[in-house]
């Protein structure tokens, strides 16, 4: 198995827990197997030592400019998932019902179309 994301100076990380949760920062120095020095001037993360358990490696390295990384990260599936999770947690009971009905409608359309295709193939 080949790792594509490694802990290295310049690796952009996503802070998954603790202070500055949900922000992006860059690894400035690797202290040991567990801890790294990170800094995120554009995202408002103060330079400091963090445990790698609190960080998740992104596919970006600081070769791309910091501001662009932020934009690119927002486009990624990962960021979209975070957004959707936040949206879902804010849903009220009626919203959940509406979502359920919308899903039912969508699945019905898919089912009908699939049946048509199957019939055409026979």
């Amino acid at each position, binding site marked *: 198995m080949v790792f594509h994301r490694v802990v290295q100076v310049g690796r952009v990380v996503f802070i998954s827990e603790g202070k500055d949760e949900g922000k992006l920062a860059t690894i400035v120095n690797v202290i040991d197997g567990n801890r790294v020095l990170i800094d995120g001037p554009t995202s408002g993360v103060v330079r400091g030592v963090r445990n790698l358990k609190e960080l998740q490696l992104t596919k970006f390295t600081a070769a791309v400019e910091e501001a662009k990384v932020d934009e690119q990260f927002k486009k990624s599936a990962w960021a979209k998932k975070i957004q959707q999770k936040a949206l879902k*947690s*804010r*849903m*009220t*009971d*009626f919203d959940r*019902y*509406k979502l359920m*009905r919308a899903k039912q409608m969508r699945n019905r359309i898919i089912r009908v179309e699939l049946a048509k295709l199957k019939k055409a193939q026979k």
Partner: protein
Amino acid sequence: MVGKTKPTIGRNFDLSPGVLRFSTARLRLKRGQKTPLKTVTKQTEKPLALQRTGQKFKLGHSQKHSTKKAIAPGTVLIILAGRHKGKRVVFLKNLPSGLLLVTGPHKLNGCPLRRIAPAFVIKTSLKIDVAGVKVPDHINDDYFKRKSLIEYKVTEERKKDTKSIDTSILASIKKNKDHKLLMGYLATLFSLGKNQYPHNLIF
């Protein structure tokens, strides 16, 4: 004859393997081999500074209760207990007994005009316009009280009252833009899915 003596049945029994219901000391006490220590309480003449005197509680229920959370009329509630549990119902009025007056509407989910304790409902953020709905004065706590011990049967009066209130509620739901969804919502039962925890949900 040897077999004539009565077999003694031990008081002690296993709660679970290896764990007995009564301790040895307790059994000795029961057998009368040991007398419990008698604690002698000193009789003080004056009550202590923080000692309560007189009746602790007033006997009987107080007639008026205030509801903790103010619920606005028209709010949709989820019933958690009783025969209508899981149903989403419309709240109409606070009653002096502290109970909530709710209705299904009966046509949508089978819940008639009835009372429910506020502890048994979840308040949702959804509100239905009930400005035009008038709850007649004769619908109060006495109205719902059981009149006799004979098994209750729905009276014509209640059917009529439920119907008259429900028709005006249904009319106001109809005015809503997405009334079809609203009706479907009230008609379906609430349930928790996988990985859904009520304390994490917003209602």
